[in-house]
């Protein structure tokens, strides 16, 4: 078990590193898929097989596929060579990374007893769907429904965003109607910030809808 845990954990970290280090967006996504699979494996080692399967079905099987979809459709798999589209992103990432590392350090020093985990596993009783469903629909009914409402809102928002604006009477194309496959040169003429923002929202909303 320990062996499997170490192996899967290491692979998950490797996948994460690939995800952030890969120049190619598709490779990065594949790294993320690997990480998700390894996490599913970790769930499995904890006897949470339902969770593992759900993890694979939902995240690796659906969300990531849609991520890749978007990457391919937008032809965004070209290596990023220009300077970052989002201002101060490196600085922000540095701050975030520092905070995260600090959190891990705190966690490592305050970590004492694995018992809560074992208790959780015990509570799950082998992670069968029955227990899972009971727990979700009784104890955690409100959060569960809240999350589903959140998803509904996301769906509605996505539909609203995807809905194309009505054609202008004078025929002037709306800025949003800029073709997604337009060459880089053309896209660069769009006011800075507008195009990346569009891309971001699309990627996110698609993922949300299908999830």
């Amino acid at each position, binding site marked *: 078990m320990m062996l499997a845990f170490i192996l899967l954990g290491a692979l998950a970290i490797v996948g994460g590193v690939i995800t952030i280090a890969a120049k*190619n967006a*598709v*490779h990065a996504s*594949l790294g993320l*898929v690997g990480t998700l*699979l390894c996490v*599913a494996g970790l769930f499995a080692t904890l006897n949470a*097989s*339902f969770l*593992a*399967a*759900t993890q*694979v*079905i939902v995240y*690796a*099987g*659906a969300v990531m*596929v*849609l991520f*890749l*979809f978007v990457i*391919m*459709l937008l032809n965004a*798999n070209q290596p990023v060579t220009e300077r970052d589209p989002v201002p101060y992103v490196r600085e922000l990432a540095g701050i975030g990374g520092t905070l995260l590392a600090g959190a891990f350090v705190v966690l490592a020093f305050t970590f004492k007893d694995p018992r809560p985990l074992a208790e959780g596993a015990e509570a799950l009783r*082998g*992670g*069968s*769907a*029955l227990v899972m469903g009971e727990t979700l629909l009784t104890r955690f009914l409100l959060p569960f429904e809240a999350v589903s409402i959140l998803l509904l809102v996301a769906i509605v928002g996505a539909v609203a965003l995807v809905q*194309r604006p009505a*054609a202008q009477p004078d025929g002037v194309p709306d800025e949003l*109607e800029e073709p*997604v496959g337009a060459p880089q040169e053309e896209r660069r003429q769009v006011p800075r910030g507008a195009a990346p923002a569009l891309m971001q929202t699309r990627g996110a909303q698609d993922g949300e809808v*299908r999830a």
Partner: protein
Amino acid sequence: MPDWLATLLISLLKAVLVVLGLLTTFAYMTLIERRLLGRMQLRPGPNRVGPMGLLQPAADAIKSIFKEDLTVTLADKLVYTLAPIVAIGMALTAFGGLPAGPAGSLFGENPWVYNLDTGILALLALTSMGVYGIFLGGWASGSKYPILGGLRSSAQMISYELGMGLSLLGLLMIVGTTSFHGIVGWQAQNGPMILFQSLGFVLFLISSFAETNRTPFDLPEAEQEIVAGYLTEYSAIKWALFQMAEYVNMITASAVMSTLFFGGWKGPQFLNALIPGISDWPLIWLIVKIAFFLFLFIWVRATLPRLRYDQLMRFGWKLVLPLALANTMLTAAFLAFRGSGGLWFLGVLSLAGVLALLVLSDRVRTLWNQPSIRPEGDIVRAGGD
């Protein structure tokens, strides 16, 4: 030898046996399919290599292995190689969880490779990973038609995965477990699930065809439209691996259908009256059932033409998915409000649903066979699906 090591080795051996069995079946499936298709088209089919063409699979294998393995210049080499491996790997892994007989019936061992409590979910998870093979293969080829084909096929598979999963929910609600053993056991007591979930079975059958990219849902390979889709740039053994994955998926789908709706490895109970214990014979019943479904796959391929892509998507989203949802609601409602009524009533309800669908099939066809009318302005700027 410690126990855990023995278990591991035996598991490995069983895994190897399953893989070998599947690959052999795949090899001969290609031959059987071609022969059957040939006969259905009033021609003999391949009969050149060996007696009755029995060595044709060997010839195909040799050819595939020794053919030049071409790689397109623009291909992403790593992913290009990885894609067929993912496809076949997922396909082969999925089969291991299916029980082929009662515990300990295979020379004292269990006739399955792994047994998970969440058997069906794990299976769905693994098949959903199979999308990656096609998807990445299409993308990594670095060519236009493969990427079109890859996008199309993954969209198709994702769409039908939903219908497939939902169509099983009713079954799971009735049985109350996701384990294959539990399901088989339940069926041994209460009769095959097809009796109570005929609507669910029909939907699952259709979704299986779509998931395994078989006719009439074989759009990923539509040679006439996108020159074999994601397979365009593949050759030699990589191509053969994809082909293998398709057939293994087909076998898995057949096995799953047998297990979930037709009693799995158990034979019909009434035969026990003739030969006692016959329904518990390992392997035999499962193989017979799988063979039937494989024949069905081939039979349908010989008969039905390919769907158009928009028809396919509309069919999946507008017919299969809502019906699967309806089936779930029906079963849930029945289970919640049945009182003391037997399960037979659910069977009747389900069958009535199927019959209604049959009767209404001409009306229903407009749901998926006619393009919806959209305003002119929208059509002009219609993007991809």
